[in-house]
């Protein structure tokens, strides 16, 4: 990744314009051909700097208003197996293992999205039954203070 790539990311991270040739303006700004803007973007996707290029959805607006972070206490020797099982649930958008802390035993985290809290709870219950992990806590989001995504 070079300086031009960095500039390219900065110019596109807030969203491209909804015009017939959205990369034209960016090419002018960077003083490179339009095709190079596209090639560079593709390379950034292939190399993993860009996770995906596409639309970010305001899921709250779509009625997917319940968002629960579920924290699970999974025995260390079962994390690989249980993590894969949890990731397989359609309602689960994110699944990570995180470090445990002395005052916080949980080590696996799933983000669950649904239309209602009850649906989130049901999904957590289903996950618990499917994995046999019964020590968990559901942390519903009460307020969204910020959601910008990763920016540079």
């Amino acid at each position, binding site marked *: 990744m070079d300086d031009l790539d960095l500039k390219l990311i900065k110019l596109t991270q807030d969203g491209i314009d909804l*015009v017939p*040739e959205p990369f034209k303006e960016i090419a002018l700004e960077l003083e490179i051909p339009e095709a190079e803007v596209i090639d560079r973007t593709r390379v950034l996707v292939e190399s993993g700097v860009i996770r995906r290029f*596409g639309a*970010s959805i305001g899921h709250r607006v779509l009625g997917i208003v319940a968002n629960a972070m579920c924290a699970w206490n999974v025995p260390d020797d079962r994390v690989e197996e249980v993590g*894969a099982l949890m990731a397989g649930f359609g309602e689960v958008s*994110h699944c990570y*293992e995180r470090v445990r802390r002395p005052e916080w035993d949980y080590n696996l985290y799933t983000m669950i999205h649904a239309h209602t809290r009850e649906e989130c709870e049901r999904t957590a219950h289903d996950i618990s039954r499917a994995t046999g992990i019964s020590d968990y806590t559901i942390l519903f989001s009460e307020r969204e203070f*910020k959601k*910008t995504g*990763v920016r540079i």
Partner: protein
Amino acid sequence: MTQELELDDTDRRLINLIQLDFPLDLCPFRTLGDQIGISEQEVIEHLKRLTDIGVIRRIGPILNTKGLGGASTLIAMRVPEDAIDRVASEINDFDEVSHNYLRHGVYNIWFTVSARSKERLHEMVNEIEAIGYPFLELPVTRLFKIGVKFEV
């Protein structure tokens, strides 16, 4: 849900299509139109409306902190009720904070930090410590699933 939030078939197809497979070419909206059998102009009009009503937040790169050479973490903070608003806005002031939520529980403010380097992350954790409330720092150790595609 308000009237204007009603999505037609074209809206749905576009939303499902452009989350993962936004065409990276000179005229992406024409390509999308070709794929679903409508004109470039119609695609743009639909996407503009979807953006106006908040269904689409933006179309652009979703960045990978690690791919950018950066470091990220999740922080859970224990903040008394009457200090929540002040602390949340103090946290929001960091450009590196990408998500910030109020959640029920002993730890009630949960936010993610994406810094450009490990050094900057370390520095930030110190600054966060200076806010003066107990917190847990919970970095990812294993990734099972990331990235959302909402089927509508």
